[in-house]
């Protein structure tokens, strides 16, 4: 992916510079291949969601767009959109996806049913900046002024099933 640093963005109208463009490339021993380009910042999960597919997401106009990318074929397919800026998308050991909303709520994504479960975490704990779903729990990592806090939240009944 390519892009230009954000802080120049608001001043672009004064400068004859190339605007931000994020590009998705497949690198293989056969050589690099450009797959797609996005206006908004584009990221991909470090772990594939199944044997052949990786999940990427971009944010633009206050919306988070999810994309399935199949590196072998170069296919890029829409996987769903969220009407807010999602932060820190993570995949759990069992393949479930979780991300944070701007308000700090946890969102679990089920790609197979295109469903989103918004989970409000119990109050009294520091605001999480990373959440990972595992088993029937959500594990969160939060920062405090002099350290960090790891919290396990019990979910009970989960509706978002594993995508693999």
């Amino acid at each position, binding site marked *: *992916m*390519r892009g*230009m640093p*954000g*802080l120049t*963005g*608001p*001043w672009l*109208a004064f400068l*004859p*510079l*190339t*605007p931000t463009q994020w590009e998705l490339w497949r*690198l*293989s*021993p056969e*050589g*690099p291949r450009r797959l*797609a*380009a996005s*206006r908004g*910042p584009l990221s*991909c999960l*470090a*772990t*594939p969601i199944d*044997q052949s597919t990786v999940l990427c997401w971009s944010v633009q*106009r*206050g919306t988070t*767009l*999810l*994309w399935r990318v199949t590196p072998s074929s170069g296919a*890029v*397919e*829409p*996987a*769903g959109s969220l009407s*807010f800026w999602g*932060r820190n998308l993570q995949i759990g*050991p069992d393949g479930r996806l979780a991300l944070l909303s*701007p308000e700090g709520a946890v969102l679990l994504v089920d790609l197979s049913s*295109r*469903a*989103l479960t*918004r989970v409000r*975490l119990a109050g009294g704990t520091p605001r999480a900046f*990373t959440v*990972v779903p*595992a*088993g029937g*729990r*959500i*594990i969160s*990592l939060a*920062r405090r002024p002099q*350290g*960090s*806090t*790891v*919290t396990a939240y019990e979910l009970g009944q989960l509706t978002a099933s594993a995508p693999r």
Partner: protein
Amino acid sequence: MSDTLLDLFDRDEIAAIFAHEVAHLEHYDRRRCLFMLLAQWLIVLVGVVAAPVVIHSIDLGLQSWIPGIWFFLIWLTLSVRISRHQAHEAESDRRAVELCGDGPALARALTKLHALTRLPRRWPLEMERTASHPSLARRIQAIEAAAGIPSPPLAAPVVVAARVPDRFVILGPERIEWLDGVPPETPHEPAAVREAAASARVLRYSELISLRVATAGAGGKLALVAIERDGTTHSLPLREEDVGRVQAALDRVDARLTRGRRGSVHHGFIASALSACLLAVTVFSAHIATLMLPGLIAAFRQNPAALVALGVTASAQAGLWFAGLIDQSGWAAWAPAYGPSAPRSEIGLAWLAIGILGVCALLLGVARAREAPESRRVGIGLTAGALGGLGLLAWLAVVVSALPGPVAARLHDAARAMPSATLALWGCAAALLLVRLPRARAGAATLAILGVLPILVGSTWFADRFVRDPLRVSNRSLTSEAREAVTGSQIHLDKIATGLRVSPSGSRFALQAWAGREEDDDTDDQAPARAPMLVGDFSGGSRPIEGDDLGFLDEGRALILVSTSKTAELKILDVTEPSSSPWRVVLPPVANPRLSVDASAGTWTVAGVDRQWSHAIGLSGRVGRTPSRPAGGRCRAPAAPCSLRAASPMLPAATPRSCRRSACRGRRCAACRASPDPGSPSFP
């Protein structure tokens, strides 16, 4: 008052000036000073105490607005003080006449003061409205009125020959005559000049809104300048020896001019307030570059041209945003990369405010232009020139942006990212429309049409028809439902931690623990250097483990990646007894490595970059097996203007911090993807 002035002024003049200053002191009495002091302290307190309290303790959803509100409060306080200043100076002059009882002395003192400081006797039209003090001519009129000194009309016409041949002006008691084609030998008598002139234009003083001696041209030559109510300007180059005579004549006819009306409301104050509000809201939510020029011009020169241009740019920008034709911009657009972002409803509210304030500015500008037609042309050059220049620059930027290609995609993105290519031209066109000339209207129409083109290029229609990029197809919303979660267990660590890894059931976790140094970035993928791994569980136990990355295989075992400059090693560790390692495999050296483990399939993947940061490296294998060579390969980075910065199996964005900007030609290489396909060639 300095010693120099005391030396130069007569005693009665010094007394008059002191009386004026005493009037100021009377005005700023104890109660008024206390009120001003309290207002200043209130502003400081709001900024220092109230704003942080509101931000941190009261969730009103207004946090990101507070700096803008504070800025507005400061501006409002200063504006209220400044707006009353001119009236206060006139009051002080009248009070000085009462105190010293010598109006002519005060008038002489002020005249000397203006001569010493080289201030003009009459201000330009806009300055007359906005300056802190009235012009000398107006002050003398007011002083004479307060002192009861009669102001006799001009006794006899004053004939003034221009610095250039053939041109004359006759200043009469009721009207001014501009005469051209007067032969040089003509006697400087009113009748003779009128008789000899080839052409003449006669204007009653009531048709003029400004008549003054002004500097004209680069050489600072003096000229008599008259402005009619419709903005038409006449100018006559003056000889220096005539200036005193002309000023004296103008003093006699000043009262007969039609002064530019201030309007039924305090136009300047409201215009300035609107402009400041728009700028404040825009700084936090929209393209400040587009609105800054008309906003600043309108804030400081509240003329109709600037107001109309500001109104059109602001309201059109809001309209385009709501129509989805331009991208989110301003600091809010970049928040996801640098911190928590503003809620969408708050951004929509900001855009609504921009649109409403823009319409208000437009209506105010139009009303002002109707009410005082003479002000239509004031500031046209500055406003239209600045916006036209910005629009052309933005057009150039859009075109330059498309050059690296693919042209359609980059044109589309640039058109959306740079709304100035449209808005500045529309603002310029709106300003030009105030000039009721066919040429100006044709220019405005051309600019308006040119401004539509970037909108078309940035539209969905253009993207669907010409861009054809998979990331630009529509993406349906996910259906949503709500759940609650309760706190099960919690562990506090005395270190800053990143890189959360979790075991399959969530009973154990692993972290990278940073001793005492907090990282600013909350994306744990961007840790700049190795931090000790810490493995723990929710019973409170935790132990450090040497490694760069970790992936859980089950609740008791984890795969650890240890990387050095010469080699990398992957090994299974019993997290309860880290000293034992039933399996390990040695890998080639990998910089900035990332480990990915699929516990259910029993596979691992390591990706990173080579030591030269020129190739991505992807390696994969099966847990428990030790192949002679792990599957994977070296992948050349795209022919990007800069080199790779990081890599991982399905590579997320990596830090582009060390990219050299000049080498990037405005773009930065953020990451690439290595292919860990088992069938790909083995690592060389």
